């Protein structure tokens, strides 16, 4: 039997605390779309996407209306395009990117991910052609997102690919200099990239997946922040509330948030007749005030984000979110951890501006959460090797700790530390993060080859 107070608590969560489903992402297999030539391939890709996703946006909207919970983003992830276009060349891949962009527009989704390659151990000629196509492909398209997996815990890190990533990111930013280097915001480098992550820019439809699948990303930093504030308000006397009780509140709130996400995801999945994949439990902030992961740090007791204690708080937050979410959902996957994307989180961006959050602390924090150095705007003058080396550090964290890490760095052309950049919408805005020790890692990046896979015992 439901009590009135339970009903009201749910109403509060949905209506007053901006509960939404952050994204419903349809994964579509394109492996069998390879035709005899590029035109035939593009035609098949377009047809496949429209066939599967033609009703996708309308169905999400109708479920959203029925349940009264907004689905913020409707997205598509496809099989990594370097596999789909095996044997094609740079310009062919740009054509595929344009086709993907057109298909995404035709079905009305916000973003399409999967302009990707997986090169953690070595690169084929196709991979090299594909990587060379990325700057132009992303500059010429609007909705296409790209990702490259350059490392795994099982295979180590492909240092040749890593060195190329620094240059790719620089070129992406420079080709979109009039938009503040926005091209780099659509590109992410991974270690241990999951094949069922619904969040962008790193969503792909992994080769281990079925023909089509629906994955859901829940949101909820705002809901959790408000729940914590309420609990703290109820215990004004010092010493009457302890950290484990706060963790419990996060856990229970995440349970509710996840349940709503799964309900909507499964309803869309049933309605479209497409298999339901996973709920990604990541706590994903938006630039909207009151929907920030950064705010939770302050509520939990540090006066500045990045102050000592921040990593410990994030560790607890991330763990509590997983505990609540895993029990709430039948199938959990993707990244499933708290995100700290600097530009997309108003409070984190503010901390960069205040100088309380530096790159090194951000890196430390990514050891205990997903997904990594995400949406960090850095000076446009930082050289490609330094960027590659920052990525190398982040990849090493993922490789050694058997977790997903990623880097989405935006070297904003013509801007230096202290300036700021804005992309608008969900991509947000931020002051430029100062980078120390620029130009001191080139010899390391120049080695190339592979960083060997780590030992899987003696884990200290």
């Amino acid at each position: 039997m439901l009590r009135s107070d339970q009903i009201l608590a749910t109403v509060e969560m949905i209506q007053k605390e901006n509960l939404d489903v952050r994204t419903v992402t349809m994964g579509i297999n394109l492996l069998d779309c390879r035709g005899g030539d590029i035109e035939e391939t593009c035609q098949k890709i377009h047809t496949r996407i429209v066939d599967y996703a033609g009703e996708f946006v309308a169905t999400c909207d109708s479920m959203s209306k029925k349940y009264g919970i907004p689905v913020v983003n409707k997205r598509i992830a496809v099989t990594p395009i370097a596999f789909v276009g095996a044997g094609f060349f740079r310009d062919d891949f740009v054509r595929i990117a344009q086709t993907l962009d057109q298909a995404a527009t035709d079905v009305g989704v916000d973003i399409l991910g999967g302009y990707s390659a997986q090169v953690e151990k070595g690169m084929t000629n196709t991979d090299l052609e594909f990587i060379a196509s990325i700057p132009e492909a992303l500059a010429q398209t609007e909705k296409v997102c790209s990702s490259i997996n350059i490392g795994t815990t099982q295979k180590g890190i492909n240092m040749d690919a890593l060195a190329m990533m620094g240059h790719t990111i620089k070129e992406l930013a420079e080709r979109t200099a009039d938009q503040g280097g926005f091209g780099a915001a659509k590109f992410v480098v991974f270690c241990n990239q999951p094949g069922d992550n619904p969040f962008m820019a790193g969503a792909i439809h992994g080769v281990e997946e079925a023909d089509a699948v629906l994955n859901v990303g829940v949101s909820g930093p705002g809901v959790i922040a408000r729940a914590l504030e309420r609990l703290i308000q109820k215990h004004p006397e010092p010493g009457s509330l302890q950290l484990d009780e706060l963790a419990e509140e996060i856990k229970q709130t995440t349970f509710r948030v996840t349940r709503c996400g799964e309900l909507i995801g499964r309803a869309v999945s049933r309605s479209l007749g497409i298999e339901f994949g996973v709920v990604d439990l990541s706590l994903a902030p938006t630039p909207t005030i009151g929907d920030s992961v950064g705010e939770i740090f302050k509520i939990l007791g540090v006066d500045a984000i990045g102050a000592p204690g921040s990593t410990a708080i994030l560790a607890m937050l991330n763990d509590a979110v997983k505990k609540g979410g895993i029990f709430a959902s039948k199938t959990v996957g993707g990244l499933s951890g708290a995100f700290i994307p600097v530009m997309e989180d108003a409070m984190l961006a503010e901390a960069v501006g205040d100088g309380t959050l530096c790159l090194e602390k951000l890196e430390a924090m990514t050891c205990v959460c997903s997904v990594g150095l995400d949406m960090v705007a850095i000076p446009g003058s930082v050289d490609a090797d330094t960027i590659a080396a920052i990525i190398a550090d982040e990849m090493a964290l993922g490789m050694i700790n058997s977790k997903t890490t990623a880097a989405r760095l935006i070297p904003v052309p013509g801007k230096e530390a202290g300036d700021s950049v804005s992309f608008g919408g969900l991509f947000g805005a931020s002051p430029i993060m100062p980078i120390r020790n620029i130009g001191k890692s080139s010899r390391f990046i120049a080695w190339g080859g592979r960083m060997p896979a780590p030992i899987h015992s003696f884990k200290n």
Partner: protein
Amino acid sequence: MLIQSPSGVKSMRKQMIISVMSKDRPGIIADITGAIYQLGGDVADLNQTVLCGYLTMILSVSFTPEVTKEDLLASISHIKTSSRFEVSIKELDPKQQDKVPGPPEETYILTVQGPNKTGIVHGVSLFCYNHNINIFDLATTLRNDQYTMALQLDLKHCNTSLATLQQELEDYSKQSGLTILMQHNDIFQVTNEVTLH
């Protein structure tokens, strides 16, 4: 009970709905179910609530075909009690008995909150009636002069679209000064119950 579970109906037996009101005291349920037990009745579902010291309960009970309403009334009237029972009994039509009363797909929860004043329940229930919405369940609380209603609604026969209804609720909310929100029943189930369905 806001979330109903389908109650078992024994098709070969006669089903009765019994409503009892009395001043509250310990032992009322034991007395009433004792009278039912003596006649071989099987209680399928029971719902009771106490308001201002008065108890009311409604029971769904099945009997063998020869038991009549009069037998049951007589059995209850023989109970020795300090408080008088007001009893009403309805025999269910056998056709009705086949219907499983689980909530249909279009079940929504409406919450109404605002400062206490006369006519809130009437206004909201009239709104529902005007839209051909059936109220399955309704619970109200009054605390610190704030009145709260939670209603479980069946929108199956509602004569307007969901979007229009939401808009009209918003208009009614503005006009009445009450905070009125309507969400699908499933949302409340999944956020408050452990079982996934």
